């Protein structure tokens, strides 16, 4: 019999820091490093590492540009990233649905004796 939990979540997205980044970028066209730092609450170092991982997986495109002397790093989610995130969300939905607690009637009265 096939287990209900046989499917594995996408390990790249499953990590909390990367999940935050993917969640933010999934509703945007693109965002820069400073904005992502503010939204996710990650440190520079951590955000930098996680962006690289997501880029290596092909989920993000990270481009760099200079505005005057200030460097700006812009992250954009790729189509592969969007579909992977969509699948991940569907997986979570399935999982939560399968493990949802049975509804308890609020008007249930426990009779004693």
């Amino acid at each position, binding site marked *: 019999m096939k287990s209900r939990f046989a499917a594995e979540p996408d390990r790249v997205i499953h990590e909390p820091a990367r999940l935050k980044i993917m969640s933010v970028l999934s509703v945007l066209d693109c965002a820069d490093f400073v904005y992502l*730092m503010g939204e996710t609450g990650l440190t520079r170092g951590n955000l930098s590492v996680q962006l690289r991982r997501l880029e290596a997986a092909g989920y993000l495109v990270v481009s760099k540009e200079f*505005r*005057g002397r200030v460097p*700006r790093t812009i992250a954009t989610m790729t189509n592969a990233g969007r579909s992977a995130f969509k699948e991940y969300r569907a997986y979570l939905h399935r999982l939560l649905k399968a493990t949802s607690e049975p509804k308890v009637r609020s008007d249930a009265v426990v009779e004693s004796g």
Partner: protein
Amino acid sequence: MNEIRAARRRAQRYRFSDGIGEFVTGSVLALIGTGFLIADFLDSDTLRIVSLGVAFALALLGFLTVRFLKERITYPRTGYVRPPKPQLTYPQRFGLNVLFLLIVMPPIHEYFGPALDVDTATGRVAFLGWVSVMVAPIAVMAVRFGVYRLLFVVGTALATGGAAILLRIPGGEMIGSLFTFTGAAAVITGTCALYGYLRAHPRSALDGDHEV
């Protein structure tokens, strides 16, 4: 899901967080309004055409100024973000174009064509109706994105329109004073928002990004 929805809403609201857009747009609107008032006061057709040309140039300059200021003030402090463009259907696009024409045509007609007779009930209703159409998109944005200070701009525009009718100010002056007061209100709210933003985000906190 709520977190994701909130992230989208925050990104949409983000462009209003610094008040730069309001400040610059308000300044441009106030300048255009003042130009219209001067041209009307001097009753010069040449000056009317010149002021309309200057208005278009100022609108373009205002757009570039907002970009310039955001590059130097906002993005180094709190970053750059581009929310997804709304996917509009054909009827929605058509509706927006009609709304744009409704907003743009009356002042041009009022300015160059026969003056609106504000002594008649039809004239008053037409003018107040136009003011309402002009500020309706701002009111919708204010409520949708939770930028409630923009309602002050909307209120000022409606109050100026109402006062112009009550005082029976002639057409050209009416448009000029409406633009001037509405622009001034936007400058006030923009300045307050910018002041609050600069206090909340000192430059040293997030000074550009580094190596990724």
